[in-house]
């Protein structure tokens, strides 16, 4: 079970067309531009990358909210485009802003009922039992205190628990968590992440955890995928990646994690110069080359680096490891 592939993404592209006056083609925003990965049953995977690198677009494409421009997504070996509504029940979605993710005019019971009603799950009593079950699972207890409440009556952490409850109410096999804690108070972040981890382990869920914050990664996930400018640049198990980052971008990213050591107060941290490239018009070759200190002229700025398996399970797209 553990080794079976749950979802596999092959050469996925999602381009958005830009138009002037509604009909003149200007170009494409290449939000996801050739991404390959697998998530196995019961495996949590972290996608990390800075804002605007295409993480959320990737999440929405996995969820089936966007149609891929090119490439394919296979869920348990079947093409996603052919799965329809059945697939919706197999994936849970946890969003960034818990308050926005809950319809303000529905109470907790109704919010949890909706997915079951839409997917015609169970009878009335079974639904009610399931609602109580998931509320207990996300530790909104006593259930009676929460079941009739509206989202604005709950705290941010409680709201996010309701969102998690909703995402698992249909017994999905995969969870897509798009920055689930970045809008929460620091005090509840760890709690929510531990809850998520507990839920994931209890049900053996595959999780795609999307974040820009590497410091939360260690609570979670087996592997880390580093995304830069619409591409995955490095894929490795968590410990391996943190102890031995290979891609220059990953190294820079890890360096940027604040370390609570008083000695660091006056230490200068080196940041790669420049800014991430425009996805409308990305640079040729390696997309990181304009900012890279290890630039190999004539190679990095001309040819797209393929994926090299440096160690078993540790892949990197960088010419340095040719």
């Amino acid at each position, binding site marked *: 079970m553990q080794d079976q592939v749950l979802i596999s993404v092959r050469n996925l592209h999602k381009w958005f067309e830009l138009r002037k006056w509604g009909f003149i083609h200007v170009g494409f925003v290449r939000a996801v531009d050739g991404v390959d990965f697998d998530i196995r049953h019961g495996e949590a995977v972290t996608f990390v990358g800075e804002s605007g690198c295409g993480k959320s677009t990737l999440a929405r494409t996995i969820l089936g*909210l966007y149609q891929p421009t090119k490439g394919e997504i296979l869920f348990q070996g079947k093409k996603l485009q052919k799965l329809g509504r059945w697939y919706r029940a197999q994936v849970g979605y946890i969003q960034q802003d818990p308050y926005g993710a809950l319809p303000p005019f529905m109470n907790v019971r109704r919010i949890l009922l909706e997915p079951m009603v839409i997917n015609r799950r169970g009878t009335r009593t079974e639904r009610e039992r399931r609602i109580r079950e998931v509320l207990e699972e996300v530790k909104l207890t006593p259930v009676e205190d929460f079941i009739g409440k509206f989202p604005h009556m709950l705290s941010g952490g409680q709201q996010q628990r309701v969102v998690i409850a909703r995402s698992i109410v249909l017994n999905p096999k995969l969870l897509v968590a798009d920055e689930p804690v970045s809008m929460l108070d620091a005090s509840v972040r760890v709690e929510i992440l531990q809850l998520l981890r507990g839920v994931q382990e209890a049900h053996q869920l595959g999780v795609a955890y999307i974040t820009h914050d590497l410091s939360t990664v260690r609570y979670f996930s087996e592997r880390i995928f580093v995304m830069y400018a619409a591409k995955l640049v490095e894929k490795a198990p968590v410990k391996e990646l943190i102890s031995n980052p290979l891609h220059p971008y990953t190294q820079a990213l890890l360096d940027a994690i604040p370390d609570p050591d008083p000695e660091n107060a006056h230490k200068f941290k080196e940041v790669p110069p420049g800014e991430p490239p425009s996805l409308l018009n990305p640079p040729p070759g390696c997309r990181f080359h304009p900012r890279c200190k290890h630039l190999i002229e004539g190679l990095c700025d001309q040819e797209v680096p393929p994926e090299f398996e440096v160690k078993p399970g540790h892949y990197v797209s960088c010419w340095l490891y040719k």
Partner: protein
Amino acid sequence: MRGLLAALKEITRYPSAMVGLFILAFILALAAYAVITIPYGEAIRLWRGGEATWRYNPRTAAPAWIDYLTPKKLLRTVILGPEDAQKEVKVLSERTRRLIFTYTLDYEADVFPSELAVVFKSQYEKKPPRVEVIWRTPDGREFSFGRQIPSGKVHWYTVSQDRDLIASLRGAPEEVLFQDPNAPEKTLKGIHTITIKAYVFEPEADLEAEVVVYGTVYGIAGTDHLRRDIWVALLWGAPIALAFGLGASFGITISSIVFAAIGAWFGGWVDAVVQRLTEIRMVIPTLPILIMVGLFYSKSIWVILAVLIGLNLIESTVKQYRAVFLQEKRTPYIEAARSYGARHLRIIFRYLIPRVIPWVIPSFVLAVPAYVFLEASLSVLGLGDPVLPTWGKLLSDAFSHGALYHGYYYWVLEPAFLLMLTGFGFTLIGYTLDKVFNPKLREI
């Protein structure tokens, strides 16, 4: 749903809303009373009935309660029927009999009656009876008139229009018979004795007579130029106004929201079509089209209501709703709903539309009086429903018969008061709902 109930509970905290609710309850009670006591078909029959239905009512009489407000004693219609008469029968021959009916009328009013009439109800085979009226005033003067042969089973002898009598009395009978000879502008109070002599010429023949002294006041609301009881129209105006106002407002609000939601949700050409239709609708004036429908097709209030809703299916408020929906459609919870499989219709009706309900309700309530007034304006323009009694119809009749010029103020004031009351009630409730649903408007 619970939110709506809570809101309703909350508006009871505002005195203005309580006044509004009270007014609305009154109008609703009036409407319910009308529908229960006078069925729809009956209301139409009464209102179209004309003279035959209302013959015993005075013309353009003020409401009876006016009597309590004026120092003069006004007159209610007096009908002296067979049971009020003393009947004497004398057999004159084998075939001929003389019938004498004696009526007494105690006249106390300070005003003259508006009309006088005698109704003869006779039964005969071939030869009609002959009759004569002898009127004896309280001061002993005696007038004999109406020597005639009543034709048909029911014969109306309108004393006030008897030209010979007018000529011989040198004045209107209803004034001369009741005035004080010494002070012609005053009435003579006391007991009038009216004797009707009739000769019947067949053994089976018989005759009854009624003396009708038409008053100057009538009922709760008075009468109009066709002797119709205005109270009927005031009563039935309530359910019709409510049905028209609520129906139009509800239909137009709901359809505009649905179209706005569909346009905003699907976007693209669907949105473009809805928007262009809205803009076309915004430059088409409603009133002239309704006037044309009224002139060339049908004046039925229900047809007008259907045309009004049809014309406004896509109202200008579509623009406001669309603005909200466009914002709404990008919210994470809609995305979440799509991720767990909600389809288009479910998203439109369960996720988009509930969001605007709070501020749609006040505008829905506030729009009701506008449509009530629209119906009244159409009626005043002569395009009211010809069969149904409505408030607007009353105003229209009053206007075309110079009610204000002749001093029939009640005829204009009563429907106008009810129209304004309805508008006022809905406005009070609407503004309070606005405060409840949009807390920004609350006074500090």
